[in-house]
C-alpha cells in the first residue's frame, strides 16, 4: 500500500498557521523570559491590563488606529465608487486605470517622503489629518480599481433604464446604484479599512511619530526591545482582521488579487 503524505502536510500546514497566533498571545501575557528558558517564567494578564494605562499609550494608539482606519475606509469607499464610474465611462478608460495603479504600486514611504514638503506647507505634517490624507492617496486608487468591474454592461443598462423612465441622477444613484453595489461597498470598506489598519510607512513619515497608531507602537516596542508590549500591540493589530475573517472571508481576501 502506498503511504500518503497528505495528512502529514495538512497537519504541518495547520501548525504553521496557528503557531504565530498562539506564540504572540502567550508572549503578550508573559513577563520575564531570560535565555535559555523555552517558556516564560511569568504568565498573567498584567500586560493586557496596561492597555488602559495612559502612560503606556496603547489605548490611545488603538483609538487612533480605529479612527484613522474608519475615516479612510469611509472616504475611500465612497470616493472610489464615484471616481470609478467617471473612469469606467471615459473614452480613455484603460489608460486611466493604468495610471491609477501607480500611486498604489509604488513604495508608500518613498511616495510619502517626496510629498512631505507639501504636507508641511499646508500644516498637515505630524497630525492625524495629514495621516488620513496620506493614506487616502493609496487607498482611493485601490477602491477605484476595486469597483472597476461594477460598471459593466448590465449595470449601465439599468442606469439607462432609470434615465429613460425619468429618474434623475440622484434617484438613480441613491435608489438603484447604491443598493446594487451594497455588497461590493461593504467588501471595499473592510479592504480599505485593513489597508489603513496595517499601514506603517506613510503613517511614520507624515505622522512624524506624533500620530501613534498600533503599527507605530509595534515598531517602537521592537526598537525598545520591549517584546511583551510588542506582542500585545501585535495581538491588538491582528484581532480585528481575524474577527472580519470570521464574519466573512471576502472582507479580508480580495486585497490585491
Amino acid at each position: 500500500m502506498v503511504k500518503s503524505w497528505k495528512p502529514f502536510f495538512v497537519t504541518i500546514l495547520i501548525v504553521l498557521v496557528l503557531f504565530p497566533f498562539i506564540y504572540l498571545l502567550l508572549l503578550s501575557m508573559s513577563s520575564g523570559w531570560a535565555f535559555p528558558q523555552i517558556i516564560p517564567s511569568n504568565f498573567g494578564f498584567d500586560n493586557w491590563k496596561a492597555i488602559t494605562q495612559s502612560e503606556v499609550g496603547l489605548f490611545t494608539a488603538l483609538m487612533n488606529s480605529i479612527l484613522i482606519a474608519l475615516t479612510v475606509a469611509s472616504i475611500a469607499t465612497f470616493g472610489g465608487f464615484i471616481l470609478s464610474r467617471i473612469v469606467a465611462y471615459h473614452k480613455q478608460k484603460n489608460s486611466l486605470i493604468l495610471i491609477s495603479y501607480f500611486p498604489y504600486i509604488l513604495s508608500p514611504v518613498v511616495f510619502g517622503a517626496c510629498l512631505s514638503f507639501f504636507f508641511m506647507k499646508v500644516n498637515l505634517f505630524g497630525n492625524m489629518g495629514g495621516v488620513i490624507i496620506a493614506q487616502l492617496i493609496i487607498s482611493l486608487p485601490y477602491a477605484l480599481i476595486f469597483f472597476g468591474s461594477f460598471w459593466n454592461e448590465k449595470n449601465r443598462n439599468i442606469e439607462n433604464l432609470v434615465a429613460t423612465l425619468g429618474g434623475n441622477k440622484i434617484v438613480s444613484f441613491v435608489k438603484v446604484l447604491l443598493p446594487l453595489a451594497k455588497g461590493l461597498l461593504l467588501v471595499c470598506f473592510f479592504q480599505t479599512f485593513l489597508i489603513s489598519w496595517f499601514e506603517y510607512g506613510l503613517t511614520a513619515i507624515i505622522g512624524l511619530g506624533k500620530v501613534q497608531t498600533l503599527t507605530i507602537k509595534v515598531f517602537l516596542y521592537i526598537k525598545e526591545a520591549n517584546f511583551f508590549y510588542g506582542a500585545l500591540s501585535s495581538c491588538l493589530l491582528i484581532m480585528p482582521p481575524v474577527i472580519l475573517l470570521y464574519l466573512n472571508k471576502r472582507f479580508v481576501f480580495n486585497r490585491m488579487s
Partner: protein
Amino acid sequence: MKISEPMLLKNRGNIGILLFFGVIIMPFAIAFLYALLYSFGLVGILNDGFTIAYWLTVLSAPQLGYSFLYSALIAAVSVIFSVGLSLFTVLYLKKALNKPFINFMLYMPLAIPGIVSAFFTYQLFARTGFFSRLSYQLGIITEAASFPDLINDQFAFGIILTFISLLAPFFILFYLNLYKNENLEALERVAISLGANPKLATLKVSLPILLKKSQTVVLLYFIFLLGAYEVPLILGQESPQMLSVLILQELRQFDLNKIPEGYTMAVIYTSVVSLITFFIFRSQKNKVIHG
C-alpha cells in the same frame, strides 16, 4: 416627452475627470516633479541652480545599483519560493484544502500585517529567540552566540522568510480560486480519460494554466516587494539595504547636501517601477487583443 440620450451615460464633464486627476494623479505627479526638481538642484534648502552633479554622484556610486540588485534578488527569491510552495500545496492537497475548517485556516495568515510578521520572525530566529533557546535545550548549541546569524544577516534569510510567510498564504488562496474558476479539475479528468496518469495531468494541464494565468499578479507582487519597507527595516542589515530603506535613509540625512541624492534615487526608483508596471499592463493588453 422627449427621451434623449440617457443622461447618466453622458460624461459631462470635465469636472469628473478633473476630480480624478486632482485626487489620483496630482499627488503622484507633484511628488515625482518635486523629487525631479530637487534632484536637479532647482528646489531645496541648499540648492542654488540647475546641476546634474547629484545624478552623476548617484549613478557613479555602486550603492543604488547594489540596492536594486539586492532588492530584486530578495523579491525574486521570495516570489519564486512563495509561488512554488503555493502551487505544490494547491495541486497536492486540493481536496483537503476545500474542507471548511482547513479552508478557514488558509485565510488566517492574511490577518497578520508585515510589521507583525517581521516581529514574529525576529522572535523566532534571533540569537536569543525561540529556536536558539530550543537548540540550547536540545544541546545543539552551548551559548546564544553559537546560534547562526539569521536576522540582519547578509543572505537576508529573515527578510525572505517573512516575505514568503506573507505571500504564500495569499498565493495558495489565489491558486485555489483559479483552479476552481478555470475548471481545471474537469480538464484533468479529460486528460486522464485520454490516457494520461494523474500526475502527468496535473503537471501538463493544470500547472501551465495556473502559471500563465497568474503571471501579472506574480509580477505585481515582485514590484510590491521591491518597494517593501518595514520588513527590511526590522530584519535587514546595514549594507546593502533594500531600496525603500536606502532611499529613506538618504532623504533623512543630517547632511543636507546629501538629500538631493536621496531624491535622485527616488526618481530613478519611481521611473523604473513605473516603466515595469507600464510594460506589464501593455503586454497583458496585447495578450487580450492577440490571444
